[in-house]
């Protein structure tokens, strides 16, 4: 079997740094803890630099869309102007300055609130679509639970049927929902450990070098 070791230098650095951070997290040795915090500080700085590179990539993608006159390139023009404008305003007035907060309060917040409102509609529609797409016992249990929990938190029905709000909702939240959530979280935790160990062993290498 031919074994080709890809990127030995960056793999060695990744494994060494990963091991130090992991051991510093588990073992209470002051030198390891200090080294872990130092490396994490580096990681935070690098994440900041990566964000700048990411924004440059974002501009590049939208510039390419404008340049090649792709569908929706007008939105790309708006995005680039908005990005430059926001950077200039925040650079000039500071992140908590009047105009910076104006952009946040009167542009970003309303847009995100609108998307949140659309999300509620999209979820209601998706729940109805679920019956058509995947009609089985689990789907029926899921939808009945959603409806019962919704009914129990509405002011009118919650008062009319106190059984819903006083017993059923707390029982669903405390017993089946908690049990299911813990089961899922245990699975996620095991998957996280497995993924982390594969990266530490160098079998998964989402980097080149």
């Amino acid at each position, binding site marked *: 079997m031919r074994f080709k070791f890809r990127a030995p230098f960056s793999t060695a650095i990744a494994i060494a740094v990963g091991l130090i951070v992991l051991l510093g997290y588990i073992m209470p040795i002051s030198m390891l803890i200090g080294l872990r915090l130092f490396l994490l500080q580096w990681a935070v700085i690098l994440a900041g630099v990566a964000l700048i590179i990411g924004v440059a990539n974002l501009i590049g993608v939208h510039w390419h869309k404008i340049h090649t006159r792709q569908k929706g390139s007008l939105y790309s023009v708006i995005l680039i102007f908005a990005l430059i404008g926001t950077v200039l305003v925040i650079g000039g007035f500071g992140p908590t300055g009047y105009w910076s907060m104006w952009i946040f309060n009167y542009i970003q917040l309303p847009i995100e609130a609108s998307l949140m409102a659309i999300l509620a509609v999209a979820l209601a529609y998706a729940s109805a679509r679920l019956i058509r797409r995947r009609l089985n016992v689990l789907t029926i249990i899921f939808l009945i639970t959603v409806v019962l929990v919704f009914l129990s938190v509405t002011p009118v029905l919650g008062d009319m049927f106190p059984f819903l709000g006083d017993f059923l909702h707390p029982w669903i939240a405390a017993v089946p929902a908690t049990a299911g959530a813990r089961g899922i979280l245990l699975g996620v935790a095991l998957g996280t450990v497995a*993924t982390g160990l594969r990266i530490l062993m160098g079998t998964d290498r989402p980097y080149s070098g």
Partner: protein
Amino acid sequence: MSLTVTLSLGFILFFFIGMIVFSVLERRRSGYQLRRIPAFARLSRAIGLSVEDGSRLHLSIGRGSLTGPESAAALAGLSMLERIARRIGVSDRPPVVTSGDGALSILSRNTLESAYKAIEEGAQYDPNAGRLSGITPFSYVAGTLPLIFDEQVSTNVIAGHFGGEVALLTDAGERSGSLTLGGTDSLPGQAVLYATAQEPLIGEELYAGGAYLRAGGMHIASLRVQDIFRWILVLVILLGSIAKLAGVL
């Protein structure tokens, strides 16, 4: 050394040894049957179809920070990306990746580049295929929606850290007629994906992507160790419940 430290070290050490042992066994005799997960069966078909009909596959690896615990979900997504890129490398429309974190967007480009180099199709690599869509939950979604609608996407793979906002992505996938499958590490995101994705990945299924896309023996070995630890946890929970009922604990 405290009990917690000993248990943590023991857990990681046994996990590590288990992965080594099972990967050696897997190399000697590859016969471990993976249970059928419909999402991965459909993904394999979708990969083939996207090569045939020249459509694009979109992978969304979420907005988890690389320095936080939620990075594991995105790293699982990246290992899926590597396999997908190798299989679609010869397609007219290479896969495109969106992320909500600068470091993840760099890693996604790096993964794509190394996957193309591995199949000797380095010229296929497009730096614009790994994109930072937005760094807040809704800006990320807003930045990703045009891609789903306008870039002839036939399959959306959602594998990373997401909250409830992921419903907008799955809704866009549904309306554009593309297949949407996905999983996340967050509980609200899981509930939303269960209701809205055509093929949801529940819990640890998200991390099994590499094994199902044949990323190597170590992926299958890690699944086997996860199974063992799951049974141990089930036993501990049952014994704990019995002990609690009996008044011992």
